[in-house]
C-alpha cells in the first residue's frame, strides 16, 4: 500500500505544485483584500480543486502500460482502488485544513464582518468545501473505473456538477423540513453533521462500487 500511495503522490505532485501556488495566491489576495465574496469562493473552491487533482494521476498513468503493470505487482486489486480513495481523502483533508487556516487568518486580520450567525457560518464554509471534495470523488471514481481514462475530463465535470447538485438538493430538503423560521444552532449543526455523514457514507459506498468494477476490469 505504501508503494501505491507513493505512486499516487508522484502522479499528483506536479499538478499539486501548480494548484498550490494558485490557491496560495488566492489566499494571500484574500488576506489582503478581506473581500467577503472572495472568502466564500476561496473556501468552496480550494478543497474541491485539490480533490480533483487526486484524479489527475489516473489520467496520466493511462498513457503507459502502468495500469496493467500495477496488476502484476504484489498488491490486490482492491488495494489499488483503496490507495486512490486514501489519496483523495488526504488531499480533501489537506485542502480543508488549508482553507480553515486562511479563513481564520482573514477573520483575525479583518475582524468578523463575514458571518451573521458566527462560528456556524465559518464551519459551514470550511466543511462545505470538504463535503464537495468528498462527493466529487464519490461520483468520479466509479465512473472512471467504468468508463476508463479517456473520459476523465467528462467525468471530472460530471462529478463536480453532481456534487454541487447533491449539496444543493440536501440543503433544499433541510430547508423544507426546518420551515421558514430561524434555525437553532442544535438543528443547524445536526443537519451539517448529517450532510457530512451522508457524504462519507456515499464515499464508502462509492469505494465498494469502484472495487467491484475494478475487479472485473481487464488490461
Amino acid at each position, binding site marked *: *500500500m*505504501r*508503494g*501505491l*500511495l*507513493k*505512486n499516487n503522490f*508522484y*502522479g499528483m505532485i*506536479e499538478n499539486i505544485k501548480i494548484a498550490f501556488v494558485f490557491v496560495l495566491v488566492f489566499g494571500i489576495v484574500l488576506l489582503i483584500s478581506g473581500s467577503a465574496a472572495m472568502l466564500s469562493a476561496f473556501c468552496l473552491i480550494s478543497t474541491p480543486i485539490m480533490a480533483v487533482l487526486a484524479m489527475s494521476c489516473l489520467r*496520466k*498513468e493511462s*498513457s*503507459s*502500460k*502502468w495500469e*496493467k*503493470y500495477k*496488476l*502484476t*505487482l*504484489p*498488491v*490486490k*486489486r*482492491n488495494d489499488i482502488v483503496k490507495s486512490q480513495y486514501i489519496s483523495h481523502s488526504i488531499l480533501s483533508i489537506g485542502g480543508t485544513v488549508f482553507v480553515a487556516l486562511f479563513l481564520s487568518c482573514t477573520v483575525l486580520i479583518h475582524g468578523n464582518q463575514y458571518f451573521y450567525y458566527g462560528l456556524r457560518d465559518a464551519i459551514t464554509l470550511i466543511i462545505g468545501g470538504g463535503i464537495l471534495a468528498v462527493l466529487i470523488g464519490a461520483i468520479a471514481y466509479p465512473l472512471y473505473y467504468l468508463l476508463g481514462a479517456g473520459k476523465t475530463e467528462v467525468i471530472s465535470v460530471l462529478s463536480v456538477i453532481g456534487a454541487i447538485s447533491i449539496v444543493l438538493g440536501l440543503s433544499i430538503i433541510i430547508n423544507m423540513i426546518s420551515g421558514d423560521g430561524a434555525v437553532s444552532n442544535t438543528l443547524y449543526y445536526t443537519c451539517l453533521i448529517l450532510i457530512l455523514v451522508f457524504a462519507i457514507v456515499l464515499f464508502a459506498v462509492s469505494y465498494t462500487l469502484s472495487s467491484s468494477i475494478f*475487479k*472485473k476490469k*481487464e*488490461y
Partner: protein
Amino acid sequence: MDYALKLQDLTKTYDSSDFILDRVSFALPIGSVMGFVGENGAGKTTTIGCIMNTLFRDSGSVQIFEKEMNDSDVELRESIGIVYDGDNFPGYLTAEQLCRIMQGTYKNWDTALFKKHLKKFQLNMEQKISKYSKGMTMKLAIATALAHHPKLLILDEATSGLDPVMRDEMLDIFLDFVSEPNHSILLSSHITSDLEKIADYITFIHDGRIILTEAKDNLIYNYAILRCKEKQFALLDTEDIVAYRKREYQIDVLVSDKKVAEKKYASITIDHTTIDEIMLLLVKGERV
C-alpha cells in the same frame, strides 16, 4: 518434473473481437527458458495477460509454481518479474521515484541491485522516464523486474525495441538470471535469433492456438527441411510431414526426424533448419 508455469487448455474470448485463444497448453520446467514465439496478433500477449490475471480466462488453468494464482496471491506475485513491450512506467516518474514505489511494494526489493543495473545500463536515476529512449525504458523495465529477486521472469517482447548489441547484452543478463537455481524465464518474442541463443524450449503460437512446443535442441538438430519436387512430395509418407509450403520451384517440407528422413528419402535434398524457417513453415505452410 517441477514446473514454474503450466498452462492447460487456456481459453479466452473477447466480446469486441473474433480472436480466440484456443485451449493453449504448455509447461515451463523450473530452471529453463521457454521461448514463446508467434507473429503479431498470434495471442502471445493475451496468453501472458491470462497468466498474470490482467485478463480473465474463460476456461482452463494456469499454474505458477504449481499454484493457481488469484488476486489475493500477493506472495506468488512477489516471485514474478514482468517486462512488457513499450512504456511499462508512466513518463512523469524518474527511476529514483520508481525505485521508491517498488521499495514500498515488494518485500524483497533490492535497491542496491536496482542501482547496480541502472549504472550498468548507464541510466540516469534523476531523469524523467519520458526523456528516455525506447531502449532505455526497456532497460529500466528489465532492471526493475530483476531487482526484487524473482524466480520467474515473464518477458513480453522485452527485447524488441533494442538494437542488436543491446539485445545481446540483455540476453546475457537473462542467461545469468537463469543460471541461478530454480530461476525460469518465459520469453515471448518474434525475434527468433534471440530465442535460438537462450531458449531451452520453444512454443509456437498461431491464430490463438499452440502449433508446436518442443525442446530447442530437438528443433535445431532433429528437425529438417526436405526440398522436394512435386513428384517427390507425392511419395512422402504423410506421417513424416509436420508442415509443408509450396514455393515456386519446390515444396519445402518440415520433418521432425532428420535421420529417419535421410534414410527414407535419400534422393531428396535435406537441409538443417532454423527457428525462423520452422515458424514460417508452421504459420504460412499447410498441414497434411
